[in-house]
């Protein structure tokens, strides 16, 4: 599987948010989108998912333009993990995950035994089988995020789009979600996620795209993109990027910011 964005311009009906975005993503790869608030990460995701019409440029899946694809066909290629939100009605966790099967059903069909088996399997993959019968409205934020990832997996997509999957999770759940993302890539899924924490990109991303004012400021490996200069440029803060040796002996790069050195000339934050 290969996803290509070509000169994509994107935004809302009467306001362009970004343009000239070109990159590609292959199965098994994790691409992390970094950038300040208002930089266009969510808008770019919505455009890739066809929730917003592109202002220009094209999106290809395996060389085929997705323009004119039906909702069901899009949903079989792309799955979306939104930031966990509360539903209105108390569906069980199992039923919530089962909704991921919708794109594989006929318009009037209900999920089959096979669909249920897939949903339960995905609960197992995420290690939340014990929650199956609990109402989705009554579990914790971290459990909700895992449920939504299980739902996206039940969709059996080629590409997984995750909008700040670690936002509003505690430290343990953040790392748990990042581990799952690594596992998903091992299953051959192409993962595209956004985050506000550059350390997360060092932990799980193969490539990083730095989105600033709606344009790709940098694109490359985490080590190439996340540098003292680039972080100062887009966030207007002073950060030391250094190597640390982890308990398992591997060297991991980390960001350590310095407080109180905000560059007054920066226009990074709106």
């Amino acid at each position, binding site marked *: 599987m290969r996803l290509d964005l070509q000169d994509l311009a994107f935004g809302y009906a009467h306001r362009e948010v970004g343009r000239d975005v070109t990159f590609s993503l292959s199965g098994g790869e994790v691409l992390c989108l970094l950038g300040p608030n208002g930089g266009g990460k969510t808008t770019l995701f919505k455009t890739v*998912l066809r929730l917003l019409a592109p202002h220009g440029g094209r999106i290809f899946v395996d060389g085929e333009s997705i323009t004119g694809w039906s909702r069901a066909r899009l949903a079989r290629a792309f799955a*979306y993990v939104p930031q966990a939100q509360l539903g*209105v009605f*108390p*569906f069980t966790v199992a039923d919530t995950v089962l*909704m*991921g099967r*919708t794109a594989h059903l006929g*318009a009037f*069909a209900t999920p089959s035994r096979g669909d249920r088996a897939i949903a339960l399997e995905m609960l197992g993959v995420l290690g939340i089988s014990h929650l199956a019968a609990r109402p989705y409205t009554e579990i914790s934020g971290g459990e909700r995020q895992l449920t939504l990832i299980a739902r996206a997996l039940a969709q059996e997509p080629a590409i997984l789009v995750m909008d700040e999957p670690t936002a509003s999770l505690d430290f343990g759940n953040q790392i748990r979600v990042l581990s799952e993302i690594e596992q998903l890539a091992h299953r051959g899924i192409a993962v595209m996620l956004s985050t506000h924490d550059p350390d997360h990109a060092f932990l799980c991303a193969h490539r990083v795209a730095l989105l600033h004012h709606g344009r790709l400021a940098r694109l490359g490996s985490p080590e190439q993109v996340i540098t003292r200069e680039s972080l100062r440029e887009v966030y207007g803060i002073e950060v030391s990027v250094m190597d640390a040796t982890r308990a398992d002996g591997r060297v991991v790069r980390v960001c350590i910011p310095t407080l109180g050195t905000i560059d007054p000339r920066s226009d990074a934050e709106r």
Partner: protein
Amino acid sequence: MILVLVAFSVGRYPVSPAQLFALLWAKLTGASIAAPPTLETVVFRVRGPRVLAAIAIGATLAASGSAYQGLFRNPLVSPDILGVSSGAALGATLGIYLSWGVPGIQGLAFALGLGAVAVVYAIAASLRRLDPLLVLVLAGIVIGTMLGACISLLKYLADPYNQLPAITFWLLGSLSAITFGDVVSILPGVLVGLVPLWLLRWRLNVMTLSEEEALTLGVDTRRVRLTVIAAATLMTAAAVSVSGVIGWIGLLIPHFARLLVGPDFSRLLPAAMLLGAAYLVAVDTLARTIAPLEIPLGVLTAFIGAPFFIWLLAVSRRGWQ
């Protein structure tokens, strides 16, 4: 746990109308309750249309209420939200004002019920930049208010001795004048509306998520929304055209059904229909027995519904939080 709840509801509610029947027979026929088969024919000839109508209309209002609450992702929505009742009410009022016959009044009520929702939908569809649900609700409120003003105008102009009581009576809802013909005439609309709701039962579950989630899960939300609104409106307009405006059932019964069988539409729809049928049969029976003068249904459903609803709020708050 869920299965127990399902078994409980499915086991209990098909029985419940039957129990009401038994009560009804006892009340109407006094001592001679010993031979039900023969009594059945008698009762059906006298009270049959009314009970059948109560079952059909109660089930219809509860079914469309369930669909609307799911579609609008809001448990406080009732089938009237897009103006079907206001439209039907204006149609009936106009029919009475013009001194049309009963079929004319019912036909006009049905047509304007559908028409009102069509106008609301057209307005919402032409304002595509905004959140589709919000625009639908706002357009529904605006059109409903306007129709209410038209009704007031007609009431003001109507003959106060003949027409005005008839209008008021219709607006409060009643099954007292119902005939077998009426029941038969609403069945096509009700059945035609029910089929798509049942076929789309899984998609309706997905529609209760946010718009973006439903879209990325592969649901063509605009098409499903149009189909469900059309189906639920057709059912409601058919029902309301013969019974007048009966409030509360479409709002209250889906809650109660959800409490029993959960939010999954494939269980919710049948449960709501059975409960709605049972509730309206019970309320209609009360309406004609508790006082020498028949009490309008709309008044009773509100008097019973309001405290019941508050009780439900207290009991099931976490259910849709």
